[in-house]
């Protein structure tokens, strides 16, 4: 049986069924991005070969994004332009030097300067050690909200839903967490902190539940509704911060500072902000993994996402699982906002989130909607973010270049065919498929 034969046949059969509405583009994209490439036949491959099969496109997308980013840095650098006036050779040399300097600064800003680290460790001065290691800790601080929000979008993807509303859920989660954080007085940390975290999750959950319910009961598309819920969340927080939740002694739209008992503990003295939230995020990521792939609940959720018809056939109440999926996704995004309030800012200010919710869509795609992938992608985005600041200061490269690099990584992720063509990767299991689809009994 050849492939050309197998495919049209399948299509003809689907066409014949006719009654099912064609899946919308969002759904096709979700399936494309969450599917694991089929296992080729033959001897079982070692785990790292299999891991590479899954990870090759994201890894090469990141590599290509950084490469193109370098080209962009060289193209926009006045220094390089000036060098080209002198001679082409000098221009090229300068271009490489500029790009190298920029990425070196990015790296140092993200992970710390290895030389400084070594020196600090030798001197044994605790202050110097903390300073030297602060960049990498700061990267983890930046990655934490990404992990929560990325998990939110990834979970929704697994359930066949597009959660564009993470940003709004982040705001609501931050609002409820902030309120519980400053309004409850006199509780011990062991009670107050979990309470504030739960409040944040609950707020986000509510903001996810509404579009989930609308989708399940009325068929209203979750993409539209989550976007609308974002606007409501933004304006709601504006109103609260200029009214009911505004700090009494302030003229700025800022909430009161939360009680110390609600703050996520920090591990080092100021100015190092590294806090417990990072480990909470890792724990939640593991929980999401366990939930999705090890429980019957996750099986329900994934089946409803991968093939709603088959899910119904298998006795799964797909409407209920749409609601549950969106509610859980909202709770996770709510935790992202909560984390920023309880761990970093200690109060709620306008526009505190700077787009974590939207970046998280990218993250979930980059992480193939797998919790481990999301954690790795979040660490990448976190390091890019925190390294970019140093790059701006030291190398004079605008911080926006990082957004462009992120955008290019995403474009490569969304069009894996480009990556496969550039790096001459084999189409996943295409050749193998030809053997697999051969008929039997013949």
């Amino acid at each position, binding site marked *: *049986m*050849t*492939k*050309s*034969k*197998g495919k*049209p*046949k*399948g*299509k*003809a*059969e*689907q*066409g*014949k*069924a006719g*009654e*099912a509405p064609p899946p919308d583009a969002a759904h096709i994209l979700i*399936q494309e991005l*969450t*599917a*694991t490439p*089929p*296992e*080729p*036949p*033959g001897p*079982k491959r070692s785990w790292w070969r299999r891991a590479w099969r899954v990870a090759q496109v994201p890894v090469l997308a990141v590599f290509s994004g950084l490469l193109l980013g370098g080209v962009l840095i060289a193209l926009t650098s006045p220094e390089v332009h000036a060098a080209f006036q002198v001679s082409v050779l000098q221009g090229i040399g300068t271009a490489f030097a500029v790009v190298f300097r920029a990425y070196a600064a990015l790296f140092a800003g993200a992970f710390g300067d290895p030389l400084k680290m070594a020196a600090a460790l030798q001197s044994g001065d605790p202050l110097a050690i903390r300073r030297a290691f602060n960049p990498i800790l700061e990267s983890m601080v930046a990655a934490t909200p990404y992990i929560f929000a990325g998990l939110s979008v990834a979970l929704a993807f697994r359930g066949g839903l597009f959660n564009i509303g993470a940003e709004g859920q982040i705001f609501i989660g931050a609002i409820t967490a902030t309120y519980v954080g400053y309004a409850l007085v006199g509780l011990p940390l062991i009670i107050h902190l979990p309470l504030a975290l739960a409040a944040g999750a609950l707020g986000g959950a509510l903001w996810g539940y509404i579009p989930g319910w609308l989708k399940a009961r009325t068929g209203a598309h979750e993409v539209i509704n989550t976007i609308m819920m974002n606007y409501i969340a933004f304006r709601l927080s504006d109103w609260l911060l200029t009214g009911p939740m505004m700090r009494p002694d302030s003229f700025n739209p800022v909430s009161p500072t939360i009680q110390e008992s609600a703050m996520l503990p920090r591990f080092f003295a100021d100015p190092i902000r590294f806090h417990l939230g990072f480990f909470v995020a890792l724990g939640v990521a593991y929980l999401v993994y366990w939930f999705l792939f*090890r*429980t*019957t*609940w*996750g*099986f329900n959720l994934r*089946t409803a996402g*991968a*093939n709603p*018809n*088959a*899910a*119904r*056939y*298998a*006795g*799964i*109440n797909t409407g209920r699982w749409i609601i549950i999926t969106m509610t859980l996704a909202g709770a996770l995004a709510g935790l992202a906002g909560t984390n920023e309030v309880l761990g970093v800012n200690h109060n709620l200010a306008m526009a505190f989130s700077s787009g974590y919710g939207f970046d998280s869509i990218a993250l979930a795609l980059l992480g193939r909607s797998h919790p481990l992938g999301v954690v790795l992608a979040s660490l990448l985005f976190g390091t890019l973010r925190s390294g970019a600041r140093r790059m701006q200061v030291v190398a004079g490269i605008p911080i926006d270049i990082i957004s462009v690099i992120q955008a290019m990584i995403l474009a490569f992720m969304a069009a894996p065919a480009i990556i496969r063509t550039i790096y001459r990767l084999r189409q996943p*299991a295409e*050749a*193998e*498929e*030809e*053997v*697999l*689809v*051969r*008929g*039997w*009994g*013949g």
Partner: protein
Amino acid sequence: MAPILELRGITKHFPGILANDHIDLTLDQGEILALLGENGAGKTTLMNILYGLYQPDEGQIFVKGSPLEVHQPSDAIRAGIGMVHQHFMLVPVFTVAENVMLGQERMRLAGFLNRAEAAEKVRELSKAHGLEVEPEAYVKDLSVGVQQRVEILKLLYRQADILILDEPTAVLTPQESDELFKVMRSLVAAGKSIIFITHKLREVLEVADRITVLRRGAVVATTTPAKANRAKLAEMMVGRQVRLEVRKAARKPGETVLDIRDLVAINDRRQVAVDGVSLEVREGEVLGIAGVQGNGQTELVEVVTGLRRPLSGSVRLQGQDVTGASPRRITELGAAHVPEDRQRDGLVLPYSVAENLALQTYYRPPFARGVVLQEGEIRKSAEARIGEFDIRTPSAATPAGSLSGGNQQKVIVAREFSRPIRLLVASQPTRGLDVGSIEYIHGRILEKRDGGTGVLLVSPELDEVLELSDRIAVMYRGRIVATVAADRVTKEQVGLLMAGVVPEGIEAQGIVRTVEATL
């Protein structure tokens, strides 16, 4: 006279498989050549080479005695070769005439399309060959059978002399197939030559002038209908003896398993699709529902399996009322369902074979302890099923989507048959499968019946219904026209009932409603 088309030594490799192995083939002017072979025998590959979609590794093509280089479909079209694909290549929002002239548009001055002239030409062609179709109709409003006529008209419009029809009957009802055969005969009478690709034996014997059989990429025989019969052809195709006739033990029906009373249900377009159906299925019998597709069978099955809520009427399973109950409740009461569209309803294609095998039982011990899935148990059970049902898969972890259609169906059968079941609802259980697979699935269904399971079988393939059923209920426009004992009717009688006509001399025993009542 040289044959109008000759292929010599065509060879084509795909990675890991020899799709065509030195194939020689001739087509004479004015004949219908059937190209017979199982799924995967290399029929479509060969035709795609002829049509310029693939390049052969070796071999030559001759048209009217002179060699022809085909690099792309336009080369083939210029040489008078036309192809109707399994999957139609029509623009749904265009009219028939627009579709037909697409690519060879007739223009008026200033580049305006001359639709009237095209429509006139379409009308002329359709009259000449009995291809009834309205040139101004939109393709999206046409039935599959009529769309196929449009595809054929497209070829005639381009003045193709050699027509390749790739599994044209796969999407047709028996009546539409007969229509198509008439058209094919009229075309060859007008001097056209046809290559007819199929794996259905009956059709080959009915319509072909010559038969070439392919197996595993090679020509195994060329014969004529006069010299062949179904058994011989099946043996050539499969390479071993195939049991075409199903051997059934005597029927020993017991208690009523499924009891449907006055059921009314609407379809997705809010039309009444099931209109007062009453049925009974007993232990140890197969009740076949015959009927042209689209007469309410799909909706009936959906109601019985809990996928669709009825408007009125009742469904009782094992004496319990399950009208409008959830699919899970019905499954847990001992019903199994082989769905009509295996890829849409029966499988989660990205899931592994093991997960698909657990799709109905994943939430129960031993596959789940509390809410925690027991992957070891799921895999162990899957490996046992794979062996027992001979599912050809590299491993239990392989995604179901990469298996062949026959093996996908086996996954469903293995899953549904491995539970203790009282009722089996099988909807088109052998759709799109080859002879070997059909034989196997039929055997399994009868095994269940002999074990005391009640079977509700729905199929548009009349042969299948006649062979497997103990009783046959004929469905027409949402109603059961008649219920008859399978050994007391002829195929022709059932065929008439399917068209809504009660034939004379039929055993009156089963007729529950006359046709007049349904109109």
